[in-house]
């Protein structure tokens, strides 16, 4: 089994509420997969399960063959899973540069004593980190903004910075939680190109949670649909678009306000 990510019958129960039930799916290396579902379907809960914020009540999650549950979120990031958040969570008091620099901490060879002694090895590493960050910002046209407080970026740029910060952890799997939320049509267009560009340039798998069907249908190779925490469909965008269960989940089944 060479899947990057593999969920096997994952269930999580919050008291009487079964937020995710018997969910199974896999993501292959370099694959771009969409996870969709109506509001409250459990999409963000799935993210929190994969990133170790929650521990599943039952079932197992494998990342490159390693069992995820039981690891702390920061350990999972070190294994190679990075994420962005539904509502942007940058470090508000830090500059654009320092936001990305935070992701570099876990790659450092030199720890606290080197930071205190500030010898040549430390200085070389700091220079290397700086160059790496500026390169990364350069790729996404944010280099000119490197030393600006992240708060003064435009909304779209803040979203992009969050993605850059996640990429700086050098992940093998990137989880994007509603990256198009709050974007205008032009920005969404740009985002679609950006996501495909990231997948190709960094050669990573991407799992995308998104409400905007145009974005999801436009770029995902495969789409997984969940409703009430249960998978109701999986397939190519074309399959999903015509799947009666998906249409029912989104538009309701029996009579009433069906305006497709």
């Amino acid at each position, binding site marked *: 089994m060479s899947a990057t990510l593999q969920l096997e019958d994952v269930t999580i129960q919050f008291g009487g509420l079964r937020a995710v039930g018997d969910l199974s799916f896999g993501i292959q290396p370099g694959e771009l997969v969409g996870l969709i579902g109506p509001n409250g379907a459990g999409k963000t809960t799935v993210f929190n399960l994969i*990133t170790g*914020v929650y521990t599943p009540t039952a079932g197992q999650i494998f990342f490159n063959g390693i069992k995820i549950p039981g690891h*702390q*979120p*920061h350990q999972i*990031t*070190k294994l190679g899973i*990075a*994420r962005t*958040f539904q509502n942007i*969570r*940058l*470090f*508000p*008091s*830090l500059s654009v*540069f*320092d936001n990305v*620099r*935070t*992701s*570099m*901490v*876990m790659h*450092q060879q*030199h*720890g*606290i004593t*080197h*930071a*205190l002694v*500030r010898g040549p090895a*430390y*200085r070389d*590493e*700091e220079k290397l*980190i700086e160059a790496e960050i500026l390169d990364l910002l350069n790729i996404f046209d944010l*280099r*000119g*903004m*490197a*030393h600006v407080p992240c708060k003064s970026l435009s909304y779209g740029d803040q979203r992009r910075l969050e993605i850059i*910060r*996640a990429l*700086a*952890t050098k992940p093998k799997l990137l989880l994007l939680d509603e990256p198009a939320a709050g974007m205008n049509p032009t920005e969404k267009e740009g985002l679609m190109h950006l996501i495909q560009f990231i997948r190709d340039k960094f050669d990573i798998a991407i799992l995308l949670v998104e409400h905007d069907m145009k974005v999801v249908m436009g770029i995902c190779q495969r789409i997984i649909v969940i409703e009430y925490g249960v998978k109701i469909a999986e397939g190519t965008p074309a399959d999903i678009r015509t799947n009666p269960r998906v249409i029912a989940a989104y538009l309701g089944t029996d009579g009433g306000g069906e305006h497709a």
Partner: protein
Amino acid sequence: MKHHTSHFALLLALAVSLGVSLCSSQLDDYYLDIMLNVGINVILAVSLNLVNGHTGQFSLGHAAFMAVGAYGSSMVTLEMGASMMRVLGGAGPVAESVTFLVALLVGGVSAAVCGWIVGMPSLRLRGDYLAIVTLGFNEIIRVVLQNTNGDGPFGGALGLKGIPAYTSFFWVFATAAIAIYTIGALVNSTYGRGFLAVRDDEIAGESMGINTTRYKVLAFVIGSFFAGLAGGLYAHLRTTISPEGFNFLKSVDVVVMVILGGMGSTVGVIVAAVVLTVLNEFLRDFEQYRMIVFSLLLIVMMIVRPQGLLPAGLFQRRKRA
């Protein structure tokens, strides 16, 4: 370039404090005493700033760590000082300095261990809850010291007397320089981004691979270590210490310095520590109103300038982009 500057600044500060120390007999005793108080308060404020300012954990128990350092170091000089001197070849400036250094380090390390013990469980708490736990720890240390046997090593409610007056200008300002350098170097390094990440957004920090618990404990341990050193310096300056000197109000004094100076701004916190210590001295006649003035000052600050007098970032050089 920048890194060499910080090394150079540290060496310069050490040299200057040694120089001033050597001619400190020329200085007026009263002003020298105020200066030493300023130095000790700078150490306390800068070290608390690592916890409260940079790491964003609200600790209200800094005086307790100072107490641990004061009692720890005093016990070394009082109980073992004589025998250490004998081993070091009789009383003299060198033997005295070595004894004092060992005493200070014992005080600092004991405080750091206390910081670790208190930090491990309580840093799972946030905000107000952590403030309450650290406040409680402050009171526990004070009450425990107060209720020890009067003839025992801690001296009970009366505290310890006859501590040798080893603290000099050099010791205070060398320690202050080392504290400022250590915390500055740490916070400005890539490694130090972890502290700021914990303050800004713990969940995002975890997601970027930062072990937030480790950083919180580390901030607590380093902060407590320097508070312990400050306590040791204080004890060997005053030559008498009592549990009352390390009560909750002492912790509040330090918190006020950090908040007035600007949380997370080393320069601001140093300025606030200097100004408040000097102000305290000149307002000695109005001692009973001091706390009223401080609280009013804090309220006015919160309304007019919540980011502090010299907020963090004001002095950060902008790098070439």
